[in-house]
């Protein structure tokens, strides 16, 4: 019997996508607007305002140098978002190129790329990342490359498996018979078909990237302490938790969590809509 598909979970997932997309868009808009319009004077040290708890004037309180924590968190998240987009994009491109090449260019290329994937998966994540960031010399390029080069493997494997399924499709055999090159087939036939997979991969990579950026800066491999990166805020705030100044670490942490969960949920929902088989919606 032909498979009868129930469309209701898919419809529900579509509504979920709309909801989580709106959440994410709202968050991102707030962060970007805050980044553009919040007054930079609030970031200047002011000894009169040191370590104030949250209030109307300072919703997240102030830090040990009297800087407004809310402004710092918004600036930090804006930086995270920027780095996130750039890194996830680079990582997605690497996955797409290597995944498609592995599946399309024959056994030898596949062997080399599979070896590279296994090797990269084998090296512990964080150490590899720190080494890479160190080699490039810290700062934004260090963080971006460090994270991008350690996060492409699983998506590359997915792309490779997807392309393997369609590479012997009749329309691709026809294209070869008509004399079309592998590059043409990769760009015109294969890429549009794996694009949804890449999109989901990109969105799902995003929260990872933001978390790792925070982790790297928390550990001190990244920016100078003046930069309002979330990781730096967290590492500065941690020692103060024990002395009762909880807002210094908790509020930036919650803001980061909200953003990360928003993106993770969005990616998950988008995947359900695009491919109901891989999830039970």
């Amino acid at each position, binding site marked *: 019997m032909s498979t009868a598909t129930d*469309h209701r979970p898919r419809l529900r997932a579509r509504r979920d996508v709309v909801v989580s997309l709106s959440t994410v868009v709202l968050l991102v808009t707030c962060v970007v607007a805050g980044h553009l319009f919040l007054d930079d004077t609030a970031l200047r040290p002011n000894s009169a305002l040191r370590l104030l708890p949250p209030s109307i004037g300072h919703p997240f309180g102030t830090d040990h140098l009297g800087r407004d924590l809310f402004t710092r968190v918004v600036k930090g998240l804006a930086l995270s978002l920027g780095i996130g987009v750039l890194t996830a994009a680079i990582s997605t491109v690497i996955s797409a190129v290597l995944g498609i090449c592995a599946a399309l260019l024959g056994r030898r290329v596949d062997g080399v790329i599979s070896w590279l994937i296994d090797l990269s998966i084998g090296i512990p994540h964080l150490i590899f990342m720190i080494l890479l960031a160190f080699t490039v010399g810290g700062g934004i390029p260090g963080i971006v490359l460090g994270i991008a080069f350690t996060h492409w493997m699983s998506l590359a494997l997915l792309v490779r498996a997807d392309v393997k399924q369609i590479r012997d499709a009749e329309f691709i055999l026809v294209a070869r018979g008509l004399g079309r090159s592998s590059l043409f087939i990769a760009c015109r036939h294969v890429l549009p078909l794996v694009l949804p997979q890449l999109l989901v991969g990109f969105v799902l990579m995003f929260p990872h990237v933001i978390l790792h950026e925070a982790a790297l800066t928390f550990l001190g491999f990244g920016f100078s302490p003046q930069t309002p990166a979330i990781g730096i805020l967290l590492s500065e705030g941690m020692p103060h938790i024990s002395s009762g100044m909880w807002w210094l670490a908790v509020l930036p942490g919650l803001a980061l969590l909200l953003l990360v969960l928003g993106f993770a949920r969005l990616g998950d929902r988008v995947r359900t809509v695009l491919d109901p088989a891989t999830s039970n919606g």
Partner: protein
Amino acid sequence: MNTPILTVSELDVSFTQYASGLRTRTLTGIAGLNIEVREGEILAVIGASGSGKTLLAQAILGILPRNADVTGEIRFRGERLTAARRRRTLGREISYIPQSVTNLDPLMPVGEQVRIGLDPKTAHQEQSRLFARYGLASEAARLYPFELSGGMLRRVLFATSVRDTVRLIIADEPTPGLHAEAVEEVLRHLRELAADGVAVLLITHDIVSAVSVAERVAVMNGGRLITVEPAAAFTGDGDGLGHPFARDLWRALPQNRFSIGGVEWH
């Protein structure tokens, strides 16, 4: 011999699909179909893929995809075929012979599959009788589907579908890709069943086998029933066929004129 077993009146089947975003669109599968199968009769339904003939079978059996909307009436032996009545009659009075032998359970010996739904007391006896009827060796009962040849599996399918209580058989493309001899065997079994008084609805795109086995042939195209012709009219040049579409269809066969409309081959 003339009691109607299956009566389908004003059947409409349509599908709701997602077009883009949350918007939906409706596709018509079958529109305004009326058809009747009588006791002891083989009615063939022919049509190209997409003509709606398989949907007709699915509508009768209640196995349409969930996004299908069905209106109209399907009556079995005079009574409306409701979901509750289907549960009581499917497999006992109404039998389905599917398109492909992959519908057999690969993990169950074929004898056991034939015994499903039989009275447990007489099941073994009945199964041996069915095996004998379809020319299957009794040792084959213990074998799994992968151990049997395609032709034998087809006979097993018949044995699983046919019960003494059966009044209506729906056979959906029972002869795809089979060579002439195997097709003839399947058709012979259908003829035997009809001779026992069973009503047979044979769904196929093979005009020649439809004509050779059925009394009447219903021609479907684009979700509509175009015409019902007596099978005997599909002969020679098809001059006896009432509807021009049926005539064109018959004459377009390569063994006939291989013509299109009035245009002859070569």
